[in-house]
């Protein structure tokens, strides 16, 4: 797993420009993997705006993000540039209410549907 400077900058820009950002397979309307599907559904349910990157479109990002966060799987959620976790952690945090709490304490508006 390699992370070149270019890819690193690209990743930093993505998570810098979006308060909530999801690296996923596919996109929120057409997820290409069950785990990515769950992850984007959780964010939709929280009613937050989030940016996303389809890692299937870019092999460098797909491999680079794993080194960047020291995390071997996709999806990956970032809130205010901070790595929050993958699908399992998101699920646990959503069920316990921690995810909404985290979003709110970071000043991100949520609207639970």
């Amino acid at each position: 797993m390699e992370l070149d400077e270019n890819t690193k900058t690209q990743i930093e820009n993505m998570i810098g420009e979006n308060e909530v950002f999801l690296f996923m397979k596919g996109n929120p309307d057409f997820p290409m993997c069950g785990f990515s599907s769950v992850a984007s559904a959780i964010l939709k349910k929280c009613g937050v705006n989030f940016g996303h990157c389809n890692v299937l479109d870019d092999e460098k990002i797909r491999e680079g993000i794993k080194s960047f966060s020291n995390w071997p799987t996709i999806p990956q959620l970032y809130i205010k540039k901070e790595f929050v976790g993958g699908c399992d952690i998101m699920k646990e945090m959503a069920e316990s209410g921690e995810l909404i709490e985290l979003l709110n304490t970071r000043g991100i508006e949520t609207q639970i549907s």
Partner: protein
Amino acid sequence: MPIEQFKLEELIKNKFPNANILVEDLAGDNNHYSVSIESSAFNGLSRIQQHQLVYKSLDGLMDNELHAMQLKTKGTE
């Protein structure tokens, strides 16, 4: 390339002795597992750190031999 359930269990047991471990083969294909680990090794660690510890213990297995692993970790405190 899938991994057999007993091998995965053994691998985790070696890295986390004295832990409560539950491994389930979700799809019956040796490739989609659910793994729960309760271990004192997780005490004081954040969830991310706990999962990272497990991934690290699997030595690059994840994403190569193993496509999907649902992971639940818990400390003993």
